[in-house]
């Protein structure tokens, strides 16, 4: 188990280098004046000049990357152009928001998806049709729209949950939970349908395996077969699925943070993208990569506990 974890961590280094290099070398493809392109067509010549100076666009890109890299090794991701704050400082306070959102969504989707999938596996034709429609809906309905309708129902109509803003856990755990409920639900919708579908298919597969017949033949109860043996096999599968969906989940999280006004990494990146604050986006790229690596590591460890072979192989 430790070997695979070690591998994950070791592989994170080239991945970080690759992603950060991309954020720099993409600038080579900008046609004409990069500063003008970043500043937008309406930027004044002074603003463009300032931008060029702040981003060191007059230096060759590899020099800039090298300088950034040297600082980044020491935890310094540069300064924001618009606020002059240190990027790592600004992002550290936002990390918790995005992590809460992503982890809560993954956990919720795992629990709800497995429960629905197991219930669906026992149903008849009607259940199967519903499940098929739900799984298409999960693939096609935008998270933004789910969030929108959620706000309308739970905030506008019933006034139950806040539509906007974030309460830190330290301030009020209840408020924290309430501020996360709608965004998490909006994000989890798609993942729930994926996990429910995987659960249904995996369950059908496991229950047709030889060892299940043998358990039955030797008197082990259906409940034990379903909730101990089958559930463990299903868990291994859905944890892997959750890991594969992390990158997509982060993408959707950016949109959902923006909709619900959550002060997370995603909304920082969106603001930076519209104002040309390149250092902040580069910082978020590092944070996002670390989140993906870190959460995948946790999921790996969980899978390893449930199924040591998966790791030994």
């Amino acid at each position, binding site marked *: 188990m430790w070997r695979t974890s070690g591998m994950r961590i070791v592989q994170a280094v080239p991945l970080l280098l690759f992603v950060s290099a991309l954020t720099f070398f993409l600038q080579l493809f900008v046609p004409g004046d990069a500063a003008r392109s970043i500043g937008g067509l309406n930027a004044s010549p002074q603003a463009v000049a300032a931008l060029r100076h702040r981003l060191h666009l007059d230096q060759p890109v590899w020099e800039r990357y090298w300088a950034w890299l040297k600082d980044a090794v020491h935890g310094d991701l540069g300064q924001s152009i618009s606020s002059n704050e240190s990027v790592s400082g600004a992002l550290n306070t936002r990390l918790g928001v995005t992590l809460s959102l992503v982890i809560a969504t993954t956990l919720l989707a795992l629990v709800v998806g497995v429960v629905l999938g197991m219930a669906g596996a026992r149903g008849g034709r009607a259940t199967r049709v519903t499940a098929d429609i739900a799984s298409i*809906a999960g*693939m096609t309905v935008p998270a933004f729209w789910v969030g*929108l309708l959620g*706000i309308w129902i739970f905030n506008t109509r019933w006034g139950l949950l806040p539509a906007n803003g974030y309460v830190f856990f330290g301030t009020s755990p209840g408020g924290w939970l309430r501020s996360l409920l709608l965004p998490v639900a909006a994000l989890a919708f798609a993942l729930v349908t994926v996990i429910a579908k995987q659960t249904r298919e995996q369950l059908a597969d496991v229950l047709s395996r030889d060892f299940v017949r043998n358990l039955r*033949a030797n008197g082990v109860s259906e409940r034990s077969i379903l909730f101990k043996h089958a559930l463990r096999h299903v868990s291994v599968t859905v944890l892997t699925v959750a890991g594969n969906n992390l*990158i997509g989940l982060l993408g959707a999280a950016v*949109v959902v943070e*923006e909709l619900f006004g959550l002060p997370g990494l995603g909304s920082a990146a969106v603001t930076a993208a519209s104002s040309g604050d390149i250092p902040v986006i580069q910082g978020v790229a590092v944070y996002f990569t670390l989140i993906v690596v870190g959460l995948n590591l946790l999921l790996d460890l969980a899978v390893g506990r449930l199924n040591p072979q998966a790791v030994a192989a």
Partner: protein
Amino acid sequence: MPDVSVLRRVLRRVLRRPRIAIPAVILLLELIASFGARWLAPYPPQQADFTAALAGPSAKHPLGTDRLGRDVLSRLMYGGADTFREIAIAVVITLVVAVPLGLVIGLRRGPLDAVLMRTADVVMSIPGIILLLIVLALFAQSMTAAMVVIGLLSVPGMMRVVRSATLTVGRETYVAAARVSGLGTWRVARRHVLPRITGLILVNAALACVGTLLIASGINAIGLGVKPPAPSWGGMMADASQTLNESVWPAIPTGGLIAVTAAALIVLGDGLRDMLAERWSGASAAAPARRRRASGPAVAAAAVPESDDAWLPAEPNPVVRLTGVTVTADTAAGAVDLISDVSLTVGQGRTVGLVGESGCGKSMTGLALLGLLPNGARVSLGTVEIDGVDVGSFDAVKWRALRGGTIAFVSQEPMVALDPLFTIGHLLREAVRTHEKLSRRQATLRARELLTQVQIPDPDRVLKLRPSQISGGMAQRVSIAVALAGRPRILVADEPTTALDVTVQREIVQLLRTIQRDTGMALLMISHDWDVIAEACDTALVMYAGQVVEAGPTDRVMTAPVHPYTRRLLAANPRLAAVGEPIPTIPGTVPPPGQWPVGCHFADRCPDRVDRCTQAPIALTRPGDDVVARCVLAGEELEVSS
């Protein structure tokens, strides 16, 4: 120019399939409305009418108006053109790069394959959204640049799909032949592989379209890319989110249209794949193949039940008794008998062997005894008695009380018979506690005792291992230990030695004999191996095509077989064959259920066949004290009515 009649035929074929026609029509209408917006839209996209802001649907505004009183339908139509153009850019890039790469590395493999697959792994672990944001920032919010990035980021996934499908197709004989004959990789790919995987590519292209649609509208919804007031589907969702307090209406058609478009793409992709798959298998041209009816009515064979089991070899203190059991399965072709009129008895401490080729119904007989017939199969005639109780009406609860405690089971493949995710200790404790109320510690002691009983040295170490960490022989011992946990009175062992080495086979048979001697357990041994039968069984029953064809004491059956099938089966035993002589085989194959002949099931393969063999069902007869056989010739002198 394409022939008009061909076009018409294709069109007719497509329209006959609602799963293609409906999404295709939806998408076509959307495309016409979007690209023809300039001529078709009722209003210009920016025309505001403040007196009619946030209005619901009306004749004037079929989809209502937004917060500035702009016509939602018109804006959706104008925004659609950009949406479809964006999808096209991204997906065309993905396909143009990924499909050729996938084909080439799938056919050629080699270092290029290794390098590209590694690269794909890395690219797939990049959080793509951040690259999109940086590209939007660098390229003056250009959606085109963003779409190029989406297209490139989707390359690895598509390339893997194409590669693995190409690997599969490439293994097929005709493709291999084409390659051996010197056709270049590219031509093989285009002529032989690409047509086969077009359906798969279409499905994945549809998924890529949906992904792009959702990402593009998401980008616009968070205020990037298309700048308001220019209409975009995502931007209109964002617009609607600002006026939820006043009206939810403008949010409905915008998000709804995205979902409908995405669903249409997915359904269309699946539909096209299915149509291509059918064309490839050539099934659509021919009339729908109706499955052949089972030959001969299933009831006919069962019309002469021999529920009287007086002929059975005597078994004292019967633990289980099958009397005239017929198992019937419901298939698409109607009811089909899987075993017919099987009777057998196993007495306490005795061992009865079921022997025959595979497909003769031996395992089905065992499963009928355990109440574990596969879905759709049932005991349709005859009775199963366990410990003197007819179990015909047993429900799940009663069966569970019986299984493990009275009747237990060991199966053929020890490596798949144990749940691989649990330790052996866990599995044994579970089995023990199913039957006895024991603490965890007591259960562990009992588990240890069971491992000792199946002669596993060092049981403490084995308790901590998982099934994948032990050998096949040891796994079979563990399976037996699990089966013994409930102290069963009879064990059904379905080919318990077949998957094992010859030396291990003998040990397992010896072990079962020892356990029987110690516990008085009865054993129903299912095997195709005469050596196992000879070593383990007091009584042997030979099965052929669902019927018992001969029964008697094992010695007699093996030394003086009566039924021609038994004789042939014994002669085919490789270990009895003379050195240097070819091992005799039985020509032909066992007829599958549903295709049994009316008369003797073995008649087609029998060298001794006479006319009477094929005219009517053959009854079991008892030509001698310890001889029971289902053969007209065996019954010549001493026909016993059955």
